């Protein structure tokens, strides 16, 4: 059944590794130059550092207030994920279990909204957000992520709920379980695979998002990591020594997150898109 490991496979293996090295070269540049002095970067950006300096990191850590930016990014991502998962899984389940015109039309409207570019709603959203007191507040931006997260997440849950067998739910209902009980105690645990996918996709999006936080979070204390990094670059243009240290700090958390969960992430992405 399995293919044999032939000479051809070996050649393919070498090709694969070579391409992988090319893929990783950008990281090589960022890492080695983030510990060099400014003049050393200018002399030769490709060479290894003669002496490893961590002072760039120390300075940047202070200037961009890294712990605060990290905390803001974290709290926004976590709260948004919880909300999106709760509201879209509940809605998707009920819509699948209540077939009919109304559910169908609603589903089509929500899913079609995926085509709306963010730029199309952002301008009025800022006005509405001002009126509803959502600007300059973490709960405010979290609520906005709820709204933007619903279409894709509901779509994924909707597809998955259809594969969940109905018999268990009916049995629980006969035993006197309420609808909420059925959903939270029986259905929701069964939805775990797709919940993992939904959380991964939303985490990558929300953690890395730049424009919505830029518009909504205007005070420095509320800055997320992308905002902190970009404002740092705007102030210290071409200060590559510190700039690269800032970039390393910016990308490290999400790369660590990915490396820890890479199996689930890759599986989740595949499941989310093939559905």
């Amino acid at each position, binding site marked *: 059944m399995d293919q044999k490991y032939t000479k051809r496979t070996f050649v393919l293996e070498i090709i694969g590794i070579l391409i992988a090295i090319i893929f990783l070269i950008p990281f090589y540049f960022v890492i080695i130059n983030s510990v060099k002095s400014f003049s050393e970067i200018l002399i030769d950006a490709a060479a290894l550092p003669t002496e490893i300096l961590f002072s760039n990191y120390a300075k940047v850590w202070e200037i961009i207030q890294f712990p605060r930016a990290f905390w803001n990014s974290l709290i926004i991502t976590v709260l948004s994920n919880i909300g999106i998962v709760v509201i879209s899984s509940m809605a998707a389940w009920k819509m699948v279990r209540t077939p009919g015109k109304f559910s169908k039309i609603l589903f089509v409207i929500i899913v079609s909204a995926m085509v709306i570019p963010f*730029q199309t709603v952002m301008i009025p959203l800022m006005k509405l957000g001002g009126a509803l007191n959502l600007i300059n507040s973490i709960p405010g931006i979290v609520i906005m992520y709820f709204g933007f997260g619903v279409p894709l997440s509901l779509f994924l849950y909707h597809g998955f709920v259809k594969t969940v067998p109905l018999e268990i739910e009916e049995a629980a209902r006969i035993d006197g379980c309420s609808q909420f009980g059925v959903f939270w105690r029986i259905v929701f645990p069964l939805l775990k695979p797709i919940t993992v996918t939904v959380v991964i996709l939303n985490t990558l999006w929300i953690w890395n998002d730049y424009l919505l936080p830029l518009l909504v979070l205007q005070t420095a204390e509320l800055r997320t990591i992308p905002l902190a990094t970009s404002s740092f670059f705007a102030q210290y243009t071409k200060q590559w020594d510190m700039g690269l240290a800032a970039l390393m700090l910016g990308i490290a958390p999400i790369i660590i997150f990915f490396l820890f969960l890479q199996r689930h992430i890759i599986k989740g992405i595949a499941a989310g898109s093939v559905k």
Partner: protein
Amino acid sequence: METKIEPKVDPVVPNTSGRTKLHDVKGDPRRKAKLKSILTYTAFVGPALIFFFVIQIIPFLMGIYYSFTSWNGVSSAIEWVGLDNYKRIFTNDEVFFNSFMFTTKFMFAAVIISNLIGFGLALLLNAALKTKNILRTVFFIPNVIGGLLLGFIWQFIFVRGFASVGELTGLSFFKLPWLGDETTAFWGIVIVFAWQISGYMMIIYIAALQGVDNSLLEAARIDGANNFTLITKIIIPLILPAFTICFFLTIAMAFKIFDLNLSLTGGGPFNSTQSVAINIYQEAFQNNRYGLGTAKAIIFFVVVAIFTTFQVMATKKREVEA
């Protein structure tokens, strides 16, 4: 799939089961059950619906209205100007027109290149390589970094990294003024986009390839099919749904490009790499022309909707044939 339960006949109506009062017999329990099912429906679907409508649909409708006004974002008096904004965009806005041309060209180049690389990598990793899992992880890493930070990283590589490599190797490719020239800046963005996205596409293609029956390929090989005919005549037709998804995703991502573009070239040199998304952002928040900005955003929406619908229909059609 659609023939599931009828929740109207909710099994949970044994409420007053044994001792129904006389005046309840008038069909009241039924009504009560109906009301109850509407209430539970609202309780489950309502929250998602409210957030979705408040954050997406209402602003979308407001946007249509603002696009007919000369609103500047600050004044409370919003003046209706009819089709003026649209007229102005279509007849007298070269920068917007150019940004559309750039975005369209970019989309074509980016979609073709990132899908070619993604599909190629998937074919490679579908072989029985020992380093398969590590390679997948490596190719996927660029995806977890946001476009903004990626743009900054590559700005450094184009400006300083390429220069050093050019000096080291003497290759003229690395000595080009990467972000300083209109043509190379265009290809620079394409390169970074492909670097970021092709790993994602690879994952989708791998998932599809795993569904292809191996015995089918072996039979074809015995019949004398070479690798090329194997890929074009058997594998690609079998996994067309994956192509539909990948093309849809890459078209949408390329068309809406913002962060990466902003931090890599900032739209320069001379606005030559300014995407539509950047143009709209600047019109609204830097020039304070919210009315004009929303009109542009509405046009943008229409174009994106047409492009993606057309693409999905085109590839779906071929799927059925295959």
